Structures are given as C-alpha cells and as structure tokens.
C-alpha cells in the first residue's frame, strides 16, 4: 500500500540531495546564461575578468566576514575600516599628508608599497583586535561595537585626510590593483589565493573547527574546552586584516584613497556571505558559498549595466533576483529534505 509512495520518494530523491549543495551556484550559472544570451559581450574574457576584478575587493572582505558570521557575529565597520586603512596606506605610500594630490607618482617621497601594504593590514588587524576585545571583554554585542566602529573609522578617515582624497601612487603599488599575471588580474589572483587559504583554514584546521563550534553553540563550545573569547577576537582580527588588504588593493586600483570609499560595503559584503548560504545565526556555511555569493552579486550588477538597464529598474531587479536566488536555494534544500 505504501510502496508507491516510497518509490516516488526515492526517485527524485538523489538528484535533489546532490543539487541542494549547489543552489547558489546553479542560480549563478542560470543568471550567466541569461546574460550570455542577452548580451554578446558578457562572456568575453575581458568582461569576465572585469567582473572578477570588481568582486575581488568586496570579496576579500566577505572572506573575513564569513568567519565572523560563522560565529554568529557581524561586522558593520568594514566599509569605514576599508576607507581608513586605505587612507593610512596612502599616507604611508606618499610619505605624509602633504603633497597628497599629485596624480603622477612621486616615488621618492614615500615609503614604498611594502610599507603601505603592511600599514594597511596592520591597522586593519589592530582595529579588529580592539573591536574583538570590546565584544568579548565588555560583552557589548558585535552589532553595537561595529556600528560604533562604522562611524568612528569614518570620522578618523575624514580627520586624517581632511575630507579629500590622496592620489598618485608608484607603479609598484599600482600593480596590485591594475597588474596582470598571465591573463589574470592581480586582485583576482589575490582574492583566489585568499579564498583558498580561508577554505583550508575553516575546513581543515583546529581553529576552523572551533569557529564552527562557537557559532553552533557558544556555551557548548566553552564547556568543550574551546577558548571562545580567543576565537571571537581572532575572527574580528581576520575580517580587519582582509579589510586592510582590500583597502590596499582598492587604493592601488583607483590610484587614490578616498574618504568616502566603502560606504555601504557592509551590506554588500554581508549579502555575499548570506547569499552564499552562511547562516547569520552561526555555525552553518563556508567560504565556497561566499565566493559564489560575491560572484552572483557582481555578475548581476555587471549584466544589468552591460544591458544598459536604467538605474531605477536595475535596483528593483537586483533586489528581486537576490531574493529569488536565496528562495531557490531554500526550495532545493526543502525538496531534498522531503
């Protein structure tokens, strides 16, 4: 009597169980297919590398944000921190805040790209460390601490720069934003390597395991001997590090560090992570999804711009498609479960 049901259940079963892992990826492919059909320039190598380069900035930060969100935390300060680290890198690269506007690089004056890069990531990591300390020691929720960070770092950036941009870097520094290795843009290479590293850390190290455990159930993690506070401080340092790295790459790419850089990035970055399947309540997800999420957003914006869709319609479309992407993912998972 019940066997027909059983068989029907088993039939569709396996396919969905495999597919459900790849919801966002499938959606990304579908989207790319649509754009490939509607615009012949979409699938050109030039355009695809453009997209890849574009997503690499927010993508880098999204890698760090994945760690944070896996612990059920959040970091709203990344956009401001990016601006701040970029400004610091620029000041170092130019050797001070004077003479900041010459577009032509005046290599002699500054401290070179090495020092600038170091400054950016050190400042980013240190900012993350401080925020992590406030979160763990003073028990202020991450949302509040990093929202404070959002306005604090913006204020510091404006103070440091006086509101204006700092422009004109050495070719050595600019290579990190505009250079190529073979056919691959340097930012894409950096992003790719960083993603790989993060994936390995999350999946194959003790620290990665601890991140998932803290996000899955912080109290259980504590009672299992995980040093929860250390893990938390570390993830904010990681996202700070990546904000600094992204800041450096962005400044190198634009040949300029701007005080208004990164406004609103927090939402883009968190979207990439969440669309990639990482749960805001922690413990579920990973870096692979984040890369797909970042790519999905990048492709979407690029495809709409390529098709010269009006910016009003673009906004409506982007919103709808992002929701659809996640809805599709949920639907696949629900199918697999039933």
């Amino acid at each position, binding site marked *: 009597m*019940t066997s027909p049901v059983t068989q029907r259940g088993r039939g569709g079963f396996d396919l969905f169980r495999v597919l459900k892992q790849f919801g966002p990826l499938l959606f990304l492919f579908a989207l790319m297919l649509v754009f490939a059909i509607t615009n012949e320039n979409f699938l050109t190598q030039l355009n695809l590398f453009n997209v890849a380069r574009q997503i690499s900035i927010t993508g880098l930060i999204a890698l760090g944000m994945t760690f944070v969100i896996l612990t059920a935390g959040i970091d709203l300060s990344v956009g401001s921190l990016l601006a701040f680290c970029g400004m610091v890198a620029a000041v170092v690269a130019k050797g001070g805040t004077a003479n900041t506007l010459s577009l032509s690089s005046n290599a002699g004056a500054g401290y070179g790209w090495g020092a600038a890069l170091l400054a950016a990531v050190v400042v980013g990591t240190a900012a993350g460390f401080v925020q992590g300390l406030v979160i763990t020691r003073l028990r202020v929720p991450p949302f509040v601490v990093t929202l404070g960070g959002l306005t604090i770092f913006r204020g510091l950036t404006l103070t440091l720069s006086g509101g204006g941009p700092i422009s004109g870097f050495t070719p050595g520094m600019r290579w990190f934003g505009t250079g190529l290795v073979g056919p691959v843009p340097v930012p894409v290479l950096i992003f790719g390597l960083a993603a790989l590293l993060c994936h390995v850390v999350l999946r194959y*190290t*003790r620290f990665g*395991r601890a991140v998932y*455990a803290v996000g899955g159930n912080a109290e*259980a993690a504590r009672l299992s*001997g995980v040093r929860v506070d250390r893990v938390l401080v570390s993830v904010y340092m990681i996202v700070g590090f990546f904000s600094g790295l992204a800041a450096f790459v962005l400044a190198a790419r634009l040949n300029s560090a701007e005080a208004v850089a990164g406004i609103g990035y927090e939402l883009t970055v968190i979207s990439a992570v969440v669309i990639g399947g990482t749960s805001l309540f922690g413990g579920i997800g990973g870096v692979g999804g984040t890369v797909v999420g970042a790519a999905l957003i990048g492709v979407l914006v690029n495809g709409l711009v390529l098709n010269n869709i009006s910016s009003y319609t673009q906004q409506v479309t982007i919103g709808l498609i992002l929701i659809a992407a996640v809805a599709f993912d949920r639907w696949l998972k629900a199918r697999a479960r039933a």
Partner: protein
Amino acid sequence: MTGQLAADTPVPPLLDVVGLTKRFSGVTALDNVSLDVRAGEILGLLGENGAGKSTLLKILSGAQSASSGSISFAGRPYAPAGPDAARQAGIVTIYQELSLIPTLSVAENIFVNRAPTGPFGLIDWRRMRRQARDILARVNLSLDPETPVSALSVAEQQLVEIARALSLESRLIIMDEPTSALTETEVQQLFGIMEMLRRDGVAIMFVTHRLEEASSMCDRMTVLRDGRLAGHLLRDGGRVPVPRIIEKMVGRAASELYARPTRRDNAGAVRLSVRGLRTVRAADAPHAVVLDGIDLDLRAGEILGLAGLVGSGRTELARAVFGADPIASGTIRLDGQLIAPMSPADACALGIGLVPEDRKQQAIFAMLPIRQNFSIAALDLFSDGLGVMRPGREGAALAGYRKAMSIRMSSPEQAIDGLSGGNQQKVILARWLARDPKVLIVDEPTRGVDVGAKTEVHQILVQLAERGIAILMISSELPEVLSVSDRIITMRQGRITGEMPAIEATEESLMALMALEARPGDPQ
C-alpha cells in the same frame, strides 16, 4: 494482537494508529507501525535508542507529519495540521527535548498562547502568576513563577513541562521520557499524578528507558524495534518482568543488566582534592544551590558516585570543579598541585573533563555533523603541530566508539540533531572519552540512553577507572549509582551529607542521607 485486545474489551480505543510510516532522508524511522490506546490506561512505549518512539509521538502531537498511515482519535480520523490542532483535539505532549521558551518566565511558559485576560482582553498578570503557582504546586515545585526558565535546572524544567501539560484540558497525554532528569522522589510524585489521571479516564502514553518504571506503571506496553512494531506486552495482573521487556526490545534473550561490575580494588592516590569549596549566587540562576564548604577526595581509578535530590548542588559542584562557574573560595588540587581552573579550557588542558547534564543547551552543536560534535574537545589530539586536522585519526576514533557504544547513525557527516536523544548522548560521551582525561566528571551520563547501551556505558566507565582515571559520576538513578560506583557520597543543599562504600550502600540508606536535614547548629 491489537485486534485481539480490542475484541476483549467493549471500550473502543481512544487512539488507533494503523500502518504508520515515517521517512527522513535516508532513514525510515517508522515502518508500518500500528497500536492503540484506550481511555484511562497508561501505555508504555518502549524500544532502544533510535527505535522510533519520539518520532511516533511527534506525529501524534502534530509536530511532524507521517509519510503514510492513518490515525483515528476518539472515533474520528485524526491528522493534525500542527501542535495547536493536536491540542485542540485534546492531545497534550511533553517532548523529550525540553520545549520551554528560555527567555520567558515560568508562568508565561505555562500559559503560552492562553494567558488569562481581564478587561479589554488585556493580560491579567496577577491572575496568571497565582494560577501558575497553583499549577506548580501540583508537581510540588515551589518556584517563583517570575523566574526565567533559562535559570532553571534541567529537572526543574522537566517539572514545569509536566505541570504545564497537566494544566491543559486533555484526553491523551503523551510523555516522552519525562523521568529521565528526575530523581526517585519526583518520579514517585509524577506517578501519583498519573494514577489520578488514569482514574479520571485520561489516557497516557509514556516513554522511558528505566524499565522498572515501565514495569510498575504501565497497563500495557508497545515495543518498537528498528522502527517496526516488535510486539505488545500485557500486564496480565502482575508486573511484566524486566527481562521480558528487554527481550522484546533487543530481539534476543536479555543478558544480565545492572550487574554490579566486578569489584575492583585499585583505587590509587588522591587525584582530585577539593577543600572548602564555596560558590556565589548568580543573578541569572537566582535559586540555584550555593555550594557551601565542599570537601572531597577523588582517587585515581575509582568511580565516585554522587547522589542527591534535584537541586542538591551536584551539578554546581561539577561545574565549579570544571571551571564553568566562578568559585568564591576554597581550593582544588589535582595530583597535589594547587589548580584554580579559571575556565573550562584550563580544566581541559589540565586533564579534567565534564559531560554536562543539559545535552541540548550545553553539549550538542545541533547543526554540525556528528564528526565535529565528537572531536571538539580533543582537537589537539586529532591535529598536527600546525593545527591542521588529521581526519584519518579522527574518523578512526569515531568509528571505534560508534562500534563500542553502538551509536546508531547513517554517517559521521550527518547533522547530530538527526540522531535520537540517546544516540546524541553517546556521541557526547565519546567526545570526552576521546580526550582521555585524568579526571572525568559525568553528570547524568546515561540520561535517555537505552538499557543495552547503558550497560555499555557503565562498562566503559569501569574500564576507564581500571586504567587509572578518576571518575565522578552524578546520577539521579540510584540503581545506577549503586551498581557502578566504588564509593558514594550524598549531597543536600550544597553540602555533603554522607559517604559510604558502594558495597555497603542501599537505596534506603542513600535516600536517608539525601533527605537529611541540615545539621543543627550549622549556620544558615
């Protein structure tokens, strides 16, 4: 068999389940199960961990839906759309995994969705508190109804759940392991209430792994094995002997259970020594017991049983020693060295382990795979010097415990919340066994674990002790304390009230010590 029973009695069954099947992805949890329950009877639902008991009950309570099969309740077809519908129909459930809302007060939890209202349909808080107090009194729980549930012990939460269920108008009460967190006193109280309900014509379905309980309380028993019906057992005037139940559950003749493990005489030097331990009252657990000058010696190779009533402070003692709660004063020595574990991580590093009593809140990572749940306390053992995991080592260790404790899972990558309660408990035990600590504290180690596996767990504890590990075992099941421990101490109100070698102890003597009033002359 069902048919026979129905023919014997003129009363039609209140609940009739026919051919119920439930499939999860990859697992058939229930396979064509039929049973019935009549008004005014207590039906025991028994089976090993993962046999499908909870699944069956969840379907009846509307929390899950069946894959196929039919149910009728009070003569009408019954297919609840949700828990609310089930309740409307008169079926009330006490779930195995406690389902109170931690952020709300006890009173509100009792009255979720049906708070008494006054003028304008606004909630009458005063009436709610008064009624809550009355309801709590039925299970002899004298809690302030304003206390947030997050501050309650597992046992207290269990009692609140029971109280809530009793306060609902119902024709069938489903109880999934209501006694697993309770000590004898509370259990007897619950049984008293169940008797009363039975007399009032309420039907009860009752799941327990304490077979003595089942044998003494149930009019009939339905036994599940691997999701299939293994058979029914009738009271037939006398009690159903426990070995017969086991035989039905496991499908073969029962070996001797609760056999006192062979006496060992290998207690070595003092491993853990606690002197004058005191704790402070915490605002988020305002009524929790405050330890008041605990002195304790735990020797290498011995199993020290810790007995006490609910709220006697056993859990507090375990947590304080493990560094999970701050201590106000006192010393803890490990192998003669003064240690003051500031945190569980420190305790772990020193070689102390703790299996907590509250599995859901304090032990499992519900959404993570079994593998990660298993290895979290021993990551250093499963990784190399650089902190890179060695999945091979990890997998082999897990496979070993899976076999040793017969953990029923489909794969180590399965999320742990897909396991039955008992199997989850085994994974948590394995977590700490893998750590191989010097001192292992287990708080209700066999809560929800079936008879067979319970024996295995006991044997494992004994083996550990034989290897020189010092074990402190907290258990609310006196037979367990009696059979596994080498030495037993009892607690009451945050103090140690007695100590004796297990060989001399009896349930009666322990009960007497557990119930001992504070000695006269002691400061309040």
